[in-house]
């Protein structure tokens, strides 16, 4: 049997290439996750304890991460300890340098004393007094800041100029900020300051309320566990996708084995004829599977390690602030990935190999032993599929009614399994329906595609998995997105609000705003400066009937009842002592009105009132604000800084609501594309599977193809026939997957989204779904390229003499 085993390895190993690739891709996926996970660990843990290395105690919030240190109490505590304490934390502040507004800037403390300092100098020197700052090297690089530059931090009365005296690296990610100033300087912006922890030398004394003291080691361990949990949950997410890829590769390998073994059924029968026992035959085939599994897992592990470290290096170059370190080899992950690959191969080959056992030695003696094994659909399988297809939707229905996630997952799982089991009946019928639209070569392709229902079903199943999940993600994201859009439209009705509280805006400014690229519409908003009881500073009171031309909520926020004044609670921030429902007196000059306070967000530091209310307050309202609607596709940061440049010289401020949209777009974009990218791996494996099935079928149909060529099928027609077969398979899988995926998205919407956002509506992204079908068809075409070329190479004469 040893000779037979080695000979069949030599002869058939090449036919396992696709299966090897499928397993290797899935294994590499697992290993890459492992390498990145350990890279993230080491990146996040490096220097975690650096700021506390010389401390005896670390004081932090007792209920962290749910609770933070109370900033004022923590500041007082730090002050009390003088040189024996150093705080870590940061304040997010607006900043300008070189005549430009900087992107989001965080400012943290840097100690004067060397033993509390954890930043590492890379050029210049450390700050010695207030008025001096160091900047993180990567932030400096991104924002074009050099030693010697001046940076204005803060706004209005709190604004201070600092001089950059050095650039530093910040090795401790949790304490990282874009710039560092001395502690007294930082206290200038104490209202914005959030503190993580305070390092203390000597006695702790009276702790601030809600705080606890730990040893530096205990503190580091606590943060470490937190980081690990975060990284671990990310790894679990990634492994979920790796699991999908593995499942798809199981389908591909199982199919490869059943096709290959069916083709060799005659050989096995012959072996049995000449005296090999069942056990010998099975063992030989199992060993073959093991060799395939070992090769594939080995290739996958090596590829995964290479890819993982490549990615770490790439991240290090492209995004140096992302804390990912070059980790040591995660041995456990590598062994795990290898074992999974081998196990998956063995499991997937189990059933096909069992079928070999049943072959009777007589099969070898029959003339023309049918290579074309017709796989009937078992009754058990059909019964099971029916049960699942009945109970699944029922479970989903209950899930939607009760908003139950567990039932939804169970229902979705059983519907999908039902469809997979039902495949051998369903898929050929769908193929026939679509194939009926095609010409003669197409009709042959259709017949070829359905001649072996189970093979066809398994081949499409692998693609079905990926497509179903992809369309579910696309539809789910679109629905979520549209409901969020409505909500954000209410929270940020004005894209950019330019407000000039002191001087009225000039027509010249309005004109220039109009001509700024990215501005679609801009309306002047009339108002007057008013004193409001309970507020120290005078505020702007405006009325804006024209708001509907620019507002994303159709101007609803600006339609205020005559007895009310609506203020932007976000723009006034902490300074706002007014609460909704308060009654206040609003005074302009010697006129006044008694109004009730209402709040909203998204139009800048101004109170909106009804036109008649403003008319009682002033006879001559002047334009004090410009509300701007950005054109679609405008770059929020660019538009913001362009408008800021117009606003700043005249003492006006801008409120950029567009940034919220941008970050939402980015976030949703990141979710969607990562999900699609990760699912893409499963789809690629499925396409390898289609190419593989087709390639192996081409081998077993060599004779038929030769005969068709002899009868007058041109090479082109033959190639087209095979391409059609692949496209039929992929399009049917995609259409079926799209229907199921959109269905799942609908169920998910009914279960989750309607609960969270009551007025959300289901959106189906027809365009994206169309693109998915198109891509699937093209990919099917691509999968057919190699098999079709191979098939077309055989000349009729040589093909006919094949045996």
């Amino acid at each position: 049997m040893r000779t037979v085993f080695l000979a069949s390895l030599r002869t058939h190993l090449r036919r396992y290439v696709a299966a090897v690739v499928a397993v290797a891709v899935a294994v590499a996926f697992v290993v890459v996750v492992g390498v990145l996970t350990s890279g993230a660990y080491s990146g996040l843990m490096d220097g975690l304890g650096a700021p506390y290395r010389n401390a005896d105690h670390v004081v932090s919030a007792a209920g962290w991460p749910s609770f933070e240190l109370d900033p004022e109490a923590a500041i007082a505590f730090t002050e009390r300890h003088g040189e024996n304490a150093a705080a870590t934390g940061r304040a997010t502040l607006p900043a300008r340098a070189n005549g430009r507004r900087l992107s989001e800037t965080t400012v943290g403390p840097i100690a004067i004393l060397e033993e509390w300092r954890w930043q590492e100098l890379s050029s210049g020197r450390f700050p010695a007094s207030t008025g001096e700052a160091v900047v993180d090297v990567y932030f400096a690089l991104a924002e074009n800041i050099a030693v010697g530059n001046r940076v204005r931090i803060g706004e209005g009365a709190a604004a201070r100029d600092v001089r950059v005296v050095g650039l530093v690296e910040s090795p401790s990610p949790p304490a990282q900020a874009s710039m560092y100033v001395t502690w007294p300087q930082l206290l200038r912006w104490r209202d914005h300051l959030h503190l993580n922890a305070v390092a203390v030398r000597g006695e702790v004394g009276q702790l601030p309320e809600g705080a606890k003291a730990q040893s530096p080691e205990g503190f580091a361990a606590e943060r470490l566990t937190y980081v690990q949990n975060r990284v671990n949950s990310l790894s679990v997410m990634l492994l979920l996708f790796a699991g999908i890829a593995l499942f798809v590769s199981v389908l591909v390998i199982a199919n490869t084995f059943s096709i290959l073994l069916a083709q060799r059924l005659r050989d096995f029968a012959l072996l049995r004829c000449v005296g090999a026992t069942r056990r010998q035959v099975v063992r030989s085939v199992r060993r073959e599977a093991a060799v395939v599994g070992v090769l594939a897992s080995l290739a996958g592990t090596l590829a995964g390690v290479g890819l993982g470290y490549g990615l770490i290096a790439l991240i290090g170059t492209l995004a140096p602030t992302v804390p990912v370190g070059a980790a040591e080899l995660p041995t456990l992950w590598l062994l795990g990935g290898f074992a999974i690959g081998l196990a998956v191969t063995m499991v997937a080959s189990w059933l096909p190999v069992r079928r070999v056992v049943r072959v009777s030695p007589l099969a070898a003696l029959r003339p023309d032993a049918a290579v074309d094994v017709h796989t009937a659909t078992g009754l058990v399988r059909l019964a099971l599929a029916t049960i699942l297809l009945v109970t699944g939707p029922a479970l989903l229905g209950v899930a939607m009614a009760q908003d139950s996630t567990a039932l939804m997952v169970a229902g979705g799982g059983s519907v999908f399994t039902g469809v997979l089991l039902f495949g051998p009946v369903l898929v050929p019928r769908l193929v026939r329906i679509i194939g009926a639209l095609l010409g003669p070569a197409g009709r042959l392709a259709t017949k070829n595609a359905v001649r072996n229902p189970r093979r066809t079903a398994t081949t499409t199943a692998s693609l079905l998995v990926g497509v179903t999940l992809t369309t579910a993600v696309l539809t789910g994201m679109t629905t979520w997105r549209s409901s969020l859009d409505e909500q954000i439209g209410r929270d940020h009705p004005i894209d950019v609000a330019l407000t000039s509280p002191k001087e009225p805006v000039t027509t010249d400014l309005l004109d220039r705003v109009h001509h700024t690229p990215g501005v679609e519409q801009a309306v002047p908003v009339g108002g007057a400066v008013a004193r409001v009881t309970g507020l120290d500073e005078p505020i702007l009171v405006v009325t804006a009937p024209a708001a509907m031309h620019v507002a994303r909520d159709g101007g609803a926020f600006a339609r205020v009842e005559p007895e009310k004044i609506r203020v932007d609670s976000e723009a006034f921030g902490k300074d706002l002592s007014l609460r909704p429902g308060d009654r206040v007196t609003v005074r302009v000059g010697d006129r006044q009105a008694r109004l009730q306070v209402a709040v909203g967000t998204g139009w800048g530091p101004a109170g909106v009132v009804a036109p008649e209310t403003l008319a009682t307050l002033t006879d001559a309202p002047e334009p004090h604000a410009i509300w701007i609607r950005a054109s679609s596709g405008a770059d929020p940061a660019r538009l913001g800084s362009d408008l800021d440049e117009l606003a700043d010289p005249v003492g006006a401020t801008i409120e950029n609501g567009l940034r919220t949209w941008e970050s939402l777009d980015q976030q949703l974009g990141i979710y969607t594309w990562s999900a699609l990218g990760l699912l893409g791996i499963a789809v690629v494996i499925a396409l390898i599977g289609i190419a593989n099935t087709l390639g192996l079928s081409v081998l077993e149909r060599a004779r038929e193809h030769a005969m068709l060529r002899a009868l007058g099928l041109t090479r082109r027609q033959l190639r087209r026939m095979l391409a059609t077969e692949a496209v039929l398979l992929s399009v049917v899988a995609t259409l079926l997957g799209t229907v199921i995926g959109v269905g799942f998205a609908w169920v998910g919407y009914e279960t989750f989204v309607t609960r969270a956002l009551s007025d959300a509506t289901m959106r189906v992204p027809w365009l994206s779904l169309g693109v998915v079908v198109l891509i699937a068809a093209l990919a099917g075409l691509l999968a057919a390229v190699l098999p079709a070329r191979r098939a077309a190479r055989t000349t009729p004469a040589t093909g006919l003499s094949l045996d």
Partner: protein
Amino acid sequence: MTTTTRQAASARGLTKTYGRGDAQVHALRGVDLDLPRGRFTAIMGPSGSGKSTLMHCLAGLDQAGGGTVTVAGIDLGSLDDDALTIFRREHVGFVFQSFNLLPMLTAGENIMLPLELGSRRIDDAARERVHTLADTLGVADRLGHRPAELSGGQQQRVAIARALVTQPDLLFADEPTGNLDSTTSAEVLDHLRRSARELGQTVVMVTHERDAAAYADDVVTMQDGRIV
């Protein structure tokens, strides 16, 4: 040009070698042959005598190494692969040893296959011809069955019907009785002979069985790549 009108096909100085160096095999060593119209010719010879190669070259399944092949006035040497394919589709019919029907098509669909490949319209005349052929060959009641449900003799008769449906200039049969018992062989050979006599069909059969060759009008014997 009288020869081309009288001859369905002719070969002049035909050579063909396979392999290189020591492994070189001369399958054809200069064959001259004329196949008259409407006659049933058998090419005989032992295994390796070059008879199958000769047939492949005459049928446009393979290009000859040297010499010329003319079928229905067309010089096959001047055709590229696509032109050869279309030539086969229009001028040649085949019957193979191992029946070679497509397993997923019914007998009727298999017979119509050559018409479909040429994207010819399947008109009433074509359908009529299929039925006549099926009647003549005794498979009219089996047209809805798949090859696996037919006996070997029935499969081979379906294959003959398929070869005749395009009314080819030449019908090639490559060991058509190789897989059949003697009774069924006799039926099949009788059908081939009747196609020549009654339909005026030119038939060329490659065989190594003397009994089969006896059904032919002419017998050409080959040995070592030459006609003897």
